[in-house]
């Protein structure tokens, strides 16, 4: 189940990473090493064990529908590289 170079490039695209040619080699090898290590888990017999969605045996952790104060807008925008009239400004996407 070795990852191909194309798969690595696809994952990089999904993560918005541009890789240098030598990085493609390095990451392909490293990712394959990691997958091979994790693949050990496949050796465990999980016959009849239901899939687990969460490691803690808890459910229904709710909050009530009550409004709490929001952040002050200046605080919300504090880390924005650019802002205008209370909005975050980003490069145009359409």
């Amino acid at each position: 189940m070795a990852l191909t170079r194309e798969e690595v490039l696809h994952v990089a695209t999904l993560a918005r990473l541009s890789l240098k040619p030598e990085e493609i080699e390095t990451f392909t090898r490293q990712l394959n090493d990691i997958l091979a290590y994790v693949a050990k888990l496949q050796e465990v017999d999980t016959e009849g064990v239901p899939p687990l969605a969460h490691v803690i045996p808890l459910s229904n952790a709710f909050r009530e529908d009550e409004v709490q104060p929001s952040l002050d807008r200046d605080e919300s925008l504090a880390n924005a590289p650019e802002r205008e009239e209370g909005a975050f400004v980003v490069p145009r996407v359409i």
Partner: protein
Amino acid sequence: MEFEAVIGLEVHAQLLTKSKIFCGCATTFGAPPNTQTCPVCLGLPGVLPVLNRKAVEFALKMALATNCTVAPESVFARKNYFYPDLPKGYQISQYELPLAEHGYLDITVDSHSKRIGITRIHLEEDAGKLIHSPSRPVSFVDFNRTGVPLIEIVSEPDMRTPEEAVEYLKGLRNILLYLEICDGNMEEGSLRCDANISLRRPGSAELGVKTELKNMNSFRFVRQALEYEIRRQRALLSEGREIVQETRLWDAAKGQTFSMRGKEEAHDYRYFPDPDLVPVKVDAEWLESIRRGLPELPAERAARFQTEYGLPTADAEVLTSDKALADYFETCLQDFPQPKKVANWIMSELMREVKKEEAGIDAVQVTPRALARLLALVDRGEISGKIAKSVFDEMAATGKDPEAIIKEKGLVQISDTAALEAQAREIIAAHPKETADYRAGKTKVMGFFVGQLMKKTKGQANPKLANEIFQRLLSE
């Protein structure tokens, strides 16, 4: 070449909770940008989402109202993609284990009933809002909407015409309004609809290549976009060309759909269970308490309108297909308890006014109580039914009370025998031929005499009294 359309809808409904789905920020529509945000909905590092119980309860209500099976355990998952309206880089949604599945909604088109399957209903968070600068290559991001609770209702590909799709959507909206869990406002985006549509040869079991339509923010646009897309796909297929599987946006100004290229390359959301949220377990007891709390739904209300008020099935269905209309009807009945008369007025005069207003019945200036008073005036013989219709038009145009309009325009029915008798004598004197005819036994000319008196009094003569007077005078 003949083709059949196959349509499925994905409907997103914003839930009317006070606070967001995973944090305590307010959900008020129209607040200044980014004033309803906090570390959780801004996706800052180190925060934990905590699920709003009310959002789950609202979703469960919809699941029960659309005959779904509720999952004993459902799980939130991360849907990963990059877009500036999504601060975390993923949307919290549900994937493999949704809250509810396998429901249905019955619709009626051209008096044929049809059952539309509902694949699933799941909970998720809304994304933020982008405003694109008209003059510069930038977009402005407002995260107020980020984290507002949504339910996504996915239908089976059971619809065959744009009319069926619109009826299904109207039916869902009506139930949401009956349940009071969504305001159903398509223009403001609290109810949104995407459509999957493909064509195939009739009788074929295989599905054709589909396109996904977005940006249809009214019932009219849903119908128009589907009609356009059917024409477009039919033209391509008839020429032997292929349909490209893609997302297309409806352009209301141009009246066509256009391809939203670019977003297709990576429909690879890499869903996985969100480790920050524990599963939702719905046991029989909780579900039963939700079921007991369900209000009367459209189908039950239609049945009650037939048994309690003796309305015909068609009337009951029309009135209950819009909660506001059914409420109007019942409020009107409190003051004027004659169901069939009220139903007739609502379905003719009132519905005509409702159709003029984009905003629906709330924009109509005639209140149910005012309509009840108008009908009572007719009932007591103070004005004729014909005059009542012109009074109604005036009420709709000005919002004035019926009594004020009648007084202002001098429309009160004349029930003064002496006044009517004097005018009736003048009419008889001016029409010796008709008088002779009547006395010779042609009683049909009675209509002529009453008509003359109505004309003379501009419709204000009490017709019953007019009849009596002429009968008496002509028999003298």
